[in-house]
C-alpha cells in the first residue's frame, strides 16, 4: 500500500504543478524526561549489558544523558541474583548467562521509582539452512534474497528475531516474525536490503536466530508499525511510543532470548 499511495500523490502533484516541501519552525512543548532502559539476557556467550538513558527535549541536540546512579538487579526463578555494575559510557554490566526455560526479572531503581520486567527465556531452535535465492523486483530485475529455513515447534506460540551479520559485524538488517498461521511448519524467512551492498565473494554472512517472547515481539512490531506513521498526511497513522515490556513508565525493552546461528559463505 505504501507504494500505491506514493504513486497517487506523485500523479496528483504532477497535476498541481506546484506541490512543495519546506522546513517550518514549530514550537513544540517540552515534556518531563523519562527513563529509557534497554538490555538483554541470553544464552549466548556474551556479557549482559543494560543501558539506561533519559529522554531529551525535541529541540535539543542529540546528546542523551546516561543514567549512572541507578540500581540494576536481574534475578532468575532459581534464586539467582545478579547486581549489574555501572561502567561509564558502556551501561550496566552483569555476569548472568541465561538458561533456556528460566524466567528472568529485571528491577531498576532510580530517583525513588522502580521499573520492572519479567521474561521467560524460550527454548532455542536450530537453523536448518541458509541460502541465497532469487526474487524478481518491481523493475523486473533479479534480486538476491538471503533465505533462512528452520522448523517451528507445533502446539506453542513462537516468536523469532533474526539478526544478520557480515563478516562478524552487525549488518543493520534484521527480521522478526511470529509463527501465527504457520504453527509447526518449516518456516522460510527471506530478507532483501541495501545493507548487503558491497558484499563480495568470500565474505561470510551469519544468521543469528533468536527466540524471543511475546512481549519483545510486540515491542519490535509496534516500533516498526509506528515508525512510519505520523505526519497527518495520506496513509499516516496516529504516532505513539512502541509498547514496552517494562513497567513503571520507562521506554525501551528487556530482551531475554536464546540463540543459534549459521554461516553462509558467498561463492
Amino acid at each position, binding site marked *: 500500500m505504501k507504494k500505491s499511495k506514493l504513486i*497517487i500523490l506523485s500523479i496528483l502533484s504532477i497535476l498541481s504543478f506546484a506541490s512543495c516541501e519546506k522546513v517550518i519552525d514549530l514550537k513544540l512543548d517540552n515534556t518531563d524526561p523519562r527513563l529509557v532502559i534497554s538490555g538483554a539476557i541470553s544464552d549466548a556467550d556474551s556479557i549482559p549489558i543494560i543501558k539506561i538513558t533519559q529522554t531529551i527535549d525535541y529541540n535539543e541536540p542529540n546528546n542523551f544523558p546516561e543514567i549512572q546512579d541507578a540500581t540494576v538487579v536481574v534475578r532468575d526463578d532459581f534464586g539467582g541474583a545478579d547486581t549489574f555494575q555501572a561502567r561509564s559510557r558502556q551501561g550496566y554490566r552483569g555476569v548472568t548467562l541465561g538458561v533456556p526455560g528460566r524466567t528472568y526479572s529485571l528491577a531498576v531503581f532510580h530517583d525513588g521509582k522502580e521499573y520492572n520486567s519479567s521474561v521467560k527465556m524460550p527454548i532455542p531452535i536450530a537453523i536448518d539452512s541458509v541460502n541465497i535465492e532469487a526474487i524478481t523486483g518491481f523493475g523486473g530485475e533479479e534480486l538476491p534474497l538471503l533465505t533462512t529455513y528452520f522448523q517451528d515447534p507445533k502446539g506453542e506460540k513462537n516468536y523469532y528475531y533474526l539478526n544478520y551479520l557480515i563478516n562478524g559485524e552487525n549488518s543493520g538488517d534484521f527480521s522478526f516474525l511470529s509463527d501465527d498461521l504457520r504453527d509447526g511448519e518449516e518456516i522460510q524467512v527471506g530478507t532483501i536490503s541495501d545493507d548487503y551492498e558491497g558484499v563480495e565473494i568470500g565474505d561470510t554472512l551469519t544468521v543469528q536466530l533468536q527466540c524471543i517472547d511475546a512481549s519483545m515481539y510486540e515491542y519490535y512490531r509496534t516500533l516498526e508499525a509506528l515508525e512510519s506513521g505520523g505526519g497527518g498526511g495520506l496513509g499516516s497513522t496516529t504516532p505513539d511510543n512502541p509498547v514496552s515490556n517494562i513497567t513503571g513508565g520507562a521506554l525501551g525493552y528487556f530482551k531475554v532470548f536464546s540463540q543459534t546461528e549459521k554461516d553462509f559463505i558467498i561463492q
Partner: protein
Amino acid sequence: MTKKIKLQTKKSQLKKVVIKTKKDNDQIISTEMGVEKLDMKMINKIPVLFGERDILKTIQLLPGVKSAGEGNSGFYVRGGSADQNLVLLDEAPVYNASHLLGFFSVFNSDAIKDVKLYKGTAPAIYGGRLSSVLDVKMKDGNNQNYSVSGGVGLIASRLNIEGPIVKDKGSFLVSARRTYADVFTAFSKDTNIQKAKLYFYDFNAKANYKFNDKNRIYLSGYFGKDVLGFGNQFGINWGNATGTLRWNHIYNQKLFSNTSLIFSNFNYNIDVNLGSAEFNINSRIQDWNLKQDFQYFASKRSDFKFGINSIYHNIIPGALSIRSDDANFDLEISKKYALENAAYASHKYKFNGAFNIEYGLRLSSWSNLGPGTFYSYDAEGNQSDSTKRKKGEFGKTYFNLEPRLVANYTIDGENSVKASYTRNTQNLHLLSNSNTGSPTDLWIGSSNNVKPEISDQVALGYFRNFDKNNYEVSAEVYYKYMRNQIDYKPGAELLLNENVESQLLYGFGRAYGIELFAKKKYGRLNGWVGYTLSKTERKINGINNNEFYNAKQDRTHEISIVGIYELTKKLTFSSTWIYYTGNAITYPRGKYTIDNQTYFLYSERNADRMPDYHRLDLGLTWTRKKTDRKESSWNFSIYNAYNRANAYSIDFQENPDNPAQTQAVQTTLFKIIPSISYNFKF
C-alpha cells in the same frame, strides 16, 4: 404527492412552468432541524479542485460539516467520524464514497437530482449511523425528449444520455465518467511514475415506468471502479456497486407505500506479481436490503410514516492467496454474516397556532449469524472464549430503541425556535489504520466484543428570515454524547488479522458547538456565510492515560463564504473562501536513543495543531448558448487562488546539515491550480 407535476417544459413552445413544492419560509415553519438541501444548479457553479464538480466537497462548505483533508471528499459531521455518515444513493448505502483515496467522490453530479444532508435529527426512516445521513437521489431522466449532455475537463470526461421509454410513462438515464489523470504520467521524468496506472470510471443508470396512476417502478444502479497499478507487478482495484428496485404504490388518497429491494457491494482486490510468486488479497462487504415504507396522511395536520427494514450483511474481511512454482498458500479470515433489522414509526403533527412537532421511534436490532467461530477477548486482547455456530444460527444480538423528537415554535412568519433530541445507533464500524482512510479499511459488525455505538444529541436553534425570505439566518447549538466509540492499540494490525477485535480499544466521545449561518437566496448575488465554533473529544480506555483528548477532526473555528454573482445573463462569477483551525495532531515532545537509533517521544494524544488552513477558490461560468434543448458552457476555475501553502502533512526528520538536530518538514499538496472544462447539452 398525487398531484401531477411536470417540472420540465412539455412542448418547446410552452413556457417553462416552475412549481414550488416548498414555501419560501420553509426553514421557519418546518420541523426540520440541522438539515441542508443542496441545489444541483448551485453546486455546478461552485469552483472545485481540478474543476470536477462534486457534491461531497460542496457540502463541506456548510456549517457543522468538516472536510477530511485537502482535496478530500470525506467529511465529518458535528464531531462524528467519517464512517458515522450514512451515505445513500437511491436508498442504497455506499460503503466507500470516494475515488482515488478520497480526492474525488463517487457521485457524478450529472446523474444527481438532489442531495439532502441530515446533521441533526434524521427522521426515523433512516438509521444505522451515528452522526449524519446524506441522502442522494439520482435523476429520473427526461420523459419527454431525448437529450445528451456531458463535459470535458482537465482530468475527466462525462457523458449523460436520457430520454423517454414511453412518453409521459417512463424514462431512463445513463451517465458515465472516466478520468485520464494517468495520461499525465507519460510526461513524468521518473520512469517509475511512467509505469503507473491510475484511473477511475463510474456508471449511473436509472429507469422508471408508470404502469397506471397507482403503480410506478424505479430501477437504478451505480457501478464504479478505481484502478491503480504499477507495470505488471502491482495492481489494486476497488469499487462500489449498488442497485435499487423500488415499487411505488398508492392505495388511496391517504396511504402510500414504497417497497424497495436494495443491493450494495464494496470490494477491493490487490495483485502482486513477483515472477516467481503471485499474491492476491481481496475483501468485500455486501448487503441485501428489503425495505417497506408507508406514509399515511391522516389530515392536513397529521402525517404518519412507518415501516420495516431488513438487511443481510455478508463480509469477507480479507483473503490472501499466494501461488508460486513450489508452494501455494491460502489464508482466509473467517467470513462474517449478520442480520440488521429495524421497525420505525414517526408522526408529524401541527397543533393549533404556532406549535408543531415531529417525533418518532426506531427499534433496531443486530444479530451475528453463523456459520463461524465467535471469539471473546479479555482486556489484554487475549482470547477468553469461543463458540462455534452453524449456518443460519443466531449469535450475539443487540436491540436498541432510538427515539427522536423535533419541536418547532413559530413566533411569526419570519421567526422560529426549534429544539430536538435524537438517539442513533451504529452496528457497522469502519476500522482504519490511516488518518485519511484507504480502500483497504475494514468494516466490522458489532459482536461479542464490539458493542453498538450509541449517540444522544440535543440541539436548539433560532431561525429568522428577512426581506420577504430573501435572507435566511440561523443559529444552532448542539451537544452530542457518543458511547462505545472505537480506537486502536498502538500499531494495531488490521489487515488479514483473524483476531482483529483484539486490537481495539473502547470509550466515549463528546462533541458540542454552535453553528451560525446566513444565506441570501435570490437575486443576481446569492450565497452564504457559515461559521462553526466546536469541540470534539474522546476518552478511550488505554489511550492518553484514560483522559479526554481532542479527536483529530476537532477544529475550533471554521468559516466558509460562498458567493455567486451573475455578471450578465451569460457570465456567472463564483467564489468560495474557507478557513479552519488546523487538525489536532500528535507532535513529538522529545527524543531518545536505543541501539544507536534516535526515536521520537510522544506524550499527550492530539494535543498539538496543524497550521491554520485557508484557501480562496474562484470560478467563472460562461454560457455560450442556451435554448430549451441546447446548452453549452465553459467553466474556468482557480483552486487556491492566492497560492497559500497549506500543510498537508508535517514530518519530523534529521536536519541534513546537522544530524544532531531535528527539523519539521511541511508538505503542501495543492498550490494554485487553474482548470478548465467544457459542458454541453443537446
